[in-house]
């Protein structure tokens, strides 16, 4: 048997990726809590293996084909629940993004010294939950993974977070749960609306015209149930209020995961469920989505401009960037969809590195106040260089990853929504404004003598940030690497969505 058939058909490759971290978490559970080094090694080993397996899967992934690495087993026959996993061009980028960002975050987490065992346990459990969301094609399974991500995130923010950690953790949990319980009701509603009753996401998508027969009220209610869950995660205005608090209070590595992966679950859900499954409701809600995206872009950017705290600023910039994603989605074109998914991936990489870099300076200076610094460029040139690179990528400088995806989002949306897209461009200006202002205040000008003793980045920090910085450049110069992966699936998806609307 060749290695290729082993990967593509014999091995349960997606389950392997998903549950390797869980096994790691369980192994950590039985290690003595004083053996910090052992725990860290186990964690890195299992998360690293997940990354490795996902890379192998990526190599053998054929973008031109539909769902691959499919695993299908009966799980709870009484409820027609199946263990159904599969990956296509929409999910594959997120799977790799998740394994990569988790591994990077775990490297950054080597600095955690308090309650190490619990920290690594929760982090690996979180990875399993996130991966499952992107891979499961059965709604029950999807919901289980969706909820599993909440619990570890709650603990990671609540135990290792900043001054208001308990409040932030509880708010995060309740807010997201509030959204997802309505998704649960929608799922059950879909189950009973389908004939024969099924929870298979692909079958339900194929049955979308039969679902229409349930009437418009049903269509709208079920759409809104899913939308609430996904819009809170993205987050789309006005459900973004949990985000700044959670991102700021979370420890550095957890902020990376929050912004890098968790938000993407929302965008992924909108593309996997809302748009293809409910054509009539999509028709109704597509315009509000454009307006909401516009608000996200401009309002998010203005909020970021108003921040004095670097981490808060980066957090609000996420709201702004997710607005581009919304715009790409609302275009209902292949270009826009490509832009949206690519933007989500890029945002994961770029904002991930921004949070890591803010963590670097906070660990040394114990403040994130933009006004407290000055002239650090001379003192910590490497740090200043990488930070500037990340900021430039985030504000959409051509040649770096962010530009390509933002451009595609705008390009896709400009056709159907000329005015709103035009207005949204204002957001880019403001984004440039707040990033440049931060670079100027922190790195340029005369050195603030208070920080004369500041040291540049250490090896651990390089190990975490450099892969992301490299990807930022590579995907900016040669975006085909990312786009080829998703283009076929997304073109088909856009055509399918468009044909219903």
């Amino acid at each position: 048997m060749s290695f290729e058939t082993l990967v593509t058909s014999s091995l349960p490759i997606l389950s392997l990726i998903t549950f390797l971290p869980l096994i790691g978490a369980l192994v950590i559970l039985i290690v003595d809590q004083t053996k910090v080094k052992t725990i860290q090694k186990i964690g890195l080993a299992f998360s690293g293996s997940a990354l490795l397996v996902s890379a192998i899967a990526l190599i053998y992934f054929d973008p031109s084909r539909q769902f691959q690495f499919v695993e299908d087993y009966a799980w709870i026959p009484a409820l027609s629940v199946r263990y159904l996993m599969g990956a296509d061009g929409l999910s594959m980028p997120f799977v790799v993004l998740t394994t990569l960002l988790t591994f990077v975050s775990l490297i950054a987490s080597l600095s955690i010294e308090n309650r190490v065992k619990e920290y690594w346990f929760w982090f690996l459990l979180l990875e399993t939950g996130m991966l499952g969301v992107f891979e499961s094609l059965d709604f029950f399974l999807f919901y289980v993974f969706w909820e599993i991500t909440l619990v570890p995130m709650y603990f990671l923010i609540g135990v290792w977070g900043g001054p208001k950690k308990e409040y932030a953790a509880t708010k995060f949990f309740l807010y997201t749960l509030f959204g997802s319980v309505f998704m649960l009701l929608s799922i059950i509603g879909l189950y009973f609306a389908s004939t024969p009753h099924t929870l298979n996401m692909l079958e339900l998508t194929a049955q979308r015209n039969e679902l229409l027969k349930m009437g418009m009220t049903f269509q709208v209610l079920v759409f809104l149930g899913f939308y609430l869950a996904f819009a809170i995660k993205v987050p789309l205005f006005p459900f973004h209020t949990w985000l700044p608090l959670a991102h700021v209070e979370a420890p550095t590595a957890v902020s990376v995961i929050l912004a890098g992966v968790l938000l993407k679950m929302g965008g992924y859900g909108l593309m996997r469920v809302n748009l293809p499954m409910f054509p009539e409701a999509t028709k109704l809600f597509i315009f509000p989505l454009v307006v909401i995206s516009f608000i996200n872009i401009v309002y998010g950017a203005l909020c970021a401009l108003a921040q004095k705290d670097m981490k808060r600023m980066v957090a609000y910039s996420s709201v702004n960037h997710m607005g581009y994603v919304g715009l790409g989605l609302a275009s209902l074109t292949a270009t826009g969809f490509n832009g949206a998914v690519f933007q989500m991936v890029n945002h994961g990489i770029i904002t991930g590195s921004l949070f890591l870099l803010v963590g670097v300076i906070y660990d040394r200076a114990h403040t994130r106040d933009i006004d407290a610094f000055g002239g650090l460029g001379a003192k910590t040139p490497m740090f200043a260089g990488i930070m500037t690179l990340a900021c430039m990528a985030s504000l959409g400088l051509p040649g770096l990853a962010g530009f390509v995806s933002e451009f595609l989002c705008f390009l896709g949306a400009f056709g159907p929504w000329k005015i709103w897209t035009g207005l949204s461009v204002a957001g880019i200006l403001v984004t440039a404004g707040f990033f440049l202002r931060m670079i100027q205040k922190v790195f340029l000008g005369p050195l603030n003598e208070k920080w004369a003793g500041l040291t540049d980045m250490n090896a651990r920090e390089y190990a975490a940030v450099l892969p992301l910085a490299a990807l930022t450049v590579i995907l900016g110069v040669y975006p085909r690497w990312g786009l080829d992966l998703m283009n076929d699936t997304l073109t088909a998806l856009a055509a399918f969505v468009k044909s219903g609307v």
Partner: protein
Amino acid sequence: MDLVKLLGAEVILGAAGLILLTIDFCWPRRRALMTGVSYMAAIAALAVLVGALSHEAAASAFLSTDALTFGFSLLVILGTMITLALSQEDPTIDRHWGSYLALLLFASAGGLLLLKARDFVYVFLSLELISIASFILVAFDRKELWMIEGALKYFLVGAFSSAIGLYGISLIYAATGQTSFDALGLMGLSSARASSIGWIGLGGLLMVLVSFCFKASIAPFHFWVPDAYQAAPTPFTAYLSVVPKVVALGIFSVLLSFSASNMGPSIQAASLAPIIAVLACLTMTIGNLSAIHQTDLKRFLAYSSIAQAGYMLIGVLSASRLGGSSILVYGFGYLLMNFGAFAVVQWVARARGSYEISSMSGLAQTHFPMALAMACFLLSLAGIPPFIGFLGKYYVFASVIESQWAWWVAVVAVLNSVISVYYYLRIVYYMFFSDPFGRTVSKEVSMALLSSTVFLLLAGTVAFGVYPRPLLRLLIE
């Protein structure tokens, strides 16, 4: 012969209870012997129950069994066994050990009998068997004045509700001259026959319903719960919060007949359904909102158990097979997670000498596995996957959405889930986010049995949540 087959488990439990009383009277110091007898009785009853499964369903005019009855009976016996294990680890039950065990077995026998009852006289008889045994057990540890108050409250309310139920039964008899479900046209028989019960009979049925609501702690008939739960010895509190409650809801669903035949709801059921919907919403909301401000762990779990009863009541609502099995699945999950939560509370109370919520502080740092177990039980109670509590909630929600007209109950229920997460997380907050409490486990006390019970229940909560197939096959298929 049929009757023996029907009543085998009850006879064993009852006889063992009498033997225990005798031993307690003659050799009150033979604790181990008495414990052994009670376990033997429970195991024998379980064996009879499982043995009876292979025979075809037995029935007489007053009693009958079906698949759902089997599942609920299993729940009663497992609950009894867990309570036995917890009771062994409770030092407050030091005197009259034999009587304690005997009463526990009597209550369980009553529960088993109630599930089979297909006649209102039997319903009343078995309810009283549960109640009278429970009255004494709640008052078993009465060192403090407030404990006596709680027990007395429980007794008065219990007696009162029994009287209402009995009056309701007499009304039904007055209207129809019948007391058996079958003759009354309950249990989903044709509506032509069902209408013969008349308005007086319907009023009677409503009073029986109220009496069940007291037993199952459905709001607004729940006010005795926190005091009684706080007063009772913790193992029996756990028992009280699970077994009688699930049994009462189980017979209730049988009565409104959603299980025995598939002929659809009777007129009674249809006219009672909106009332039940409102009661379910009320129970969840009141239970959850009251739980938020509790500072005592037992009172906290008391209110949480009220809310849980509300979720189970939703299963009664939908006139379908799914509704009946949803109560059973939920009840089974509830058995595992609620006993688990009580077991951890008992463990903490013994280790740290207090039932205050603050005594949970820093448990994650001193005893991480115990804290993790408690977190799992609480999240399961809140309905977070992949624990079994989620499966139960999924079943309940599915049953009510399937019925279509009552979908709004599902909306109220999920909103309540969000509220409940808030207060369940409060305990998690103390365990994981606060620093340790100071006092820790005294070394000489070994609680091996208690700890192993906790982890056995945890294993069930997780395993059946992740892979419920064997459980569902046993309970439903």
